[in-house]
């Protein structure tokens, strides 16, 4: 015999179903509050009043989060930030050692593999496949790790073996600039999105959706993590270079 679903469980299913449809947090808050309102007024169960949660979520024509903007915020900016930060760290070490940055062709290709594997999360089919195929995340981590390890093995020993030779200072300034630009883009995207992921009570949303100040600052600060860590790394490398005889 089928056990009747409680209203709270129905609302949980409904919320998850709307999340999977990329409905914005404000619209989810509104839809859930409407359900609670009718249940309180009518005394009906959620299943009785609205039918199956999945079907009801599909019948509502609710505003969705722009998938491109979401991909930019959650995948593209962090990955580009990480990549730029790694190059910045290499450039810092090379600058204090008064060395050049040397990269061989095979090394470049191998280093590109983990970057491409991460950037592909911007396409909807890829994260879906990673979630569905349980073996896939392990394979991805192995491939990314192996390609990075191999990249160190094919590092050029001298400038004559290198495909690309960079002076450390322009690379240092360039990557620092890119880190700041990426953080500015991330901050603008965060402010413009008005934190669409957060489920907001409709009455709260109506009066201007004043988020807690601490949370607001935290969301903005996250965009500036890489520049902040870059400053710390730069100071550490400088400190170590001073300690050397």
């Amino acid at each position, binding site marked *: 015999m089928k056990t009747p679903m409680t209203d709270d469980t129905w609302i949980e299913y409904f919320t998850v179903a709307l999340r999977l449809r990329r409905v914005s947090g404000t619209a989810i808050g509104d839809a859930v*509050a409407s359900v609670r*309102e*009718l249940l309180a*007024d009518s005394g009906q169960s959620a299943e009785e009043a*609205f039918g199956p949660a999945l079907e009801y979520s599909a019948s509502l*024509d609710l505003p969705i989060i722009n998938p491109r903007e979401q991909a930019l915020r959650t995948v593209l900016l962090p990955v580009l930030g990480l990549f730029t930060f790694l190059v910045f760290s290499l450039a810092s070490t090379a600058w204090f050692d008064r060395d050049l940055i040397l990269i061989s062709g095979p090394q470049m290709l191998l280093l590109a593999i983990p970057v491409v594997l991460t950037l592909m999360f911007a396409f909807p089919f890829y994260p879906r496949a990673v979630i569905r195929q349980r073996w896939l995340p392990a394979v991805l981590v192995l491939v990314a790790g192996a390609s990075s390890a191999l990249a160190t093995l094919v590092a050029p020993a001298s400038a004559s073996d290198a495909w690309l030779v960079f002076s450390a200072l322009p690379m240092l300034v360039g990557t620092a600039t890119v880190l700041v630009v990426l953080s500015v883009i991330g901050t603008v995207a965060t402010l413009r999105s008005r934190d669409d992921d957060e489920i907001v009570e409709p009455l709260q949303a*109506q009066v201007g959706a004043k988020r807690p100040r601490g949370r607001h600052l935290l969301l903005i600060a996250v965009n500036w993590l890489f520049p902040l860590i870059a400053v710390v790394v730069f100071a550490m490398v400088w400190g170590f270079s001073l300690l050397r005889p």
Partner: protein
Amino acid sequence: MKSEHPEEVQLTSEWPSDWMRAVLGMFALRALEQGASYGYAIIADFEANGLGTVKGGTLYPLLSRYESAGFVSVEWRPGDAGPGRKYFSLTDRGRSELERTRSEWLRFTANGNDYLDTARTGRTDT
């Protein structure tokens, strides 16, 4: 829109779903004609007027589409308990839509009634 035959309404508490699907949008706009209202009050209004029982799962998606189309505007008002109530109001566009569909519907039902009465009395125009 009160029924003139309440005893018949009691006998027919549910109407064919095809009929309701066709006219529910117009009825929902009509329910807001006198002023702002909320989900359960609209459903209760339909029932009180012999239009059958409409479920929340049918009414809310319709109102959501009308909100997107600009026929209704919404406002949450605080309630005694819970998340408050979502009030729907007709916009000028919604009022025009109601007038348009109502006049067409009345014309259609008048023709339909004439046609049905003609069949019952055995008169034919052709």
